[in-house]
């Protein structure tokens, strides 16, 4: 068996023991393939379930942050573009950090128009599809 043939076998995850016994280069490749396979598996994005206390704490911290900064209600508006406005909540930019940290909980502001005196609703999605946390912040007129 040539090294080229051995590469094909190893790439397919097949046995090339005989050749490996006599070829250090291919042994190295086999080891690299094994380590890469493990690393690639770890590169998969997996949702991580957050415990309830952490989710609740995150909701409280967010709500306090929103309350203190008292943003203009316009900041809660998201202008839709054509059909995109029909989407409830497209994948947010914050997921970039999530992918690195392996987190699954993230805050999503409701993407719909709200009146000046209407309460601001913060929606917290969790990895459990049956669990959604809503945080409603009452807003008084004239605070903006």
């Amino acid at each position, binding site marked *: 068996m040539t090294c080229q043939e051995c*590469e*094909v076998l*190893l*790439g*397919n995850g097949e046995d090339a023991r005989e050749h490996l016994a006599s070829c250090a280069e291919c042994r*190295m*490749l086999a*080891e*690299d*393939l094994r*380590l*890469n*396979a*493990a*690393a*690639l*598996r*770890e*590169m*998969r*994005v*997996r*949702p991580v379930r957050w415990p309830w206390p952490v989710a609740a704490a995150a909701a409280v911290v967010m709500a306090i942050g929103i309350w203190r900064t008292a943003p203009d209600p316009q900041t809660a508006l998201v202008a839709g573009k054509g*059909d*995109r406005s*029909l*989407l*409830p*909540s*497209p*994948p*947010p*930019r914050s*997921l*970039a950090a*999530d*992918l690195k940290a392996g987190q*699954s909980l993230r805050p999503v502001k409701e993407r719909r128009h709200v009146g000046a005196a209407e309460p601001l609703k913060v929606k917290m*999605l969790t990895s459990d*599809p049956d669990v959604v946390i809503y945080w409603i912040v009452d807003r008084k007129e004239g605070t903006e």
Partner: protein
Amino acid sequence: MAWFERLMRVHERMVLGVAYRLLGRMEDAQDAAQEVFLRLFQKRDQIQGDAKPWLYRVTVNVCNDWHRKRGPTADPDENAADPANDALTAITIQDRKRLLAEGLKALGERERTAIVLRDIEGLSTREVARILGIEEATVRSQISVARVKLAKYVRKRS
């Protein structure tokens, strides 16, 4: 609408993760993921049963379109480090992942897609073949070539 929201919630990370691995840039992946869910919304009446294979297929198509619009990726050898060091060097898993992510960008579109679906997403060869609309033997060949290329890429730079 509830059906759509649920699908989005369940598959959002999968779509974004695949798009990120295929495109290599989070900003592009987010745009691609948005495009995927826009298509899902537009075709919501036509999709029956498990939407996952459909989402994989559309994610791959959207990312491939993206690559074509953006032009070919850089030749891996152009950015190659000095390959003088042939010694077996132990690298950390983080370094390996970083090099693999770089190596994925250097692969051809088909090989990259096949390995992302097979080795990262953990789909079977049959599932990958069905999603890509090609023969299982072709998928096996693409994956074999891609794995060896990735291994050589990582070794060269570690």
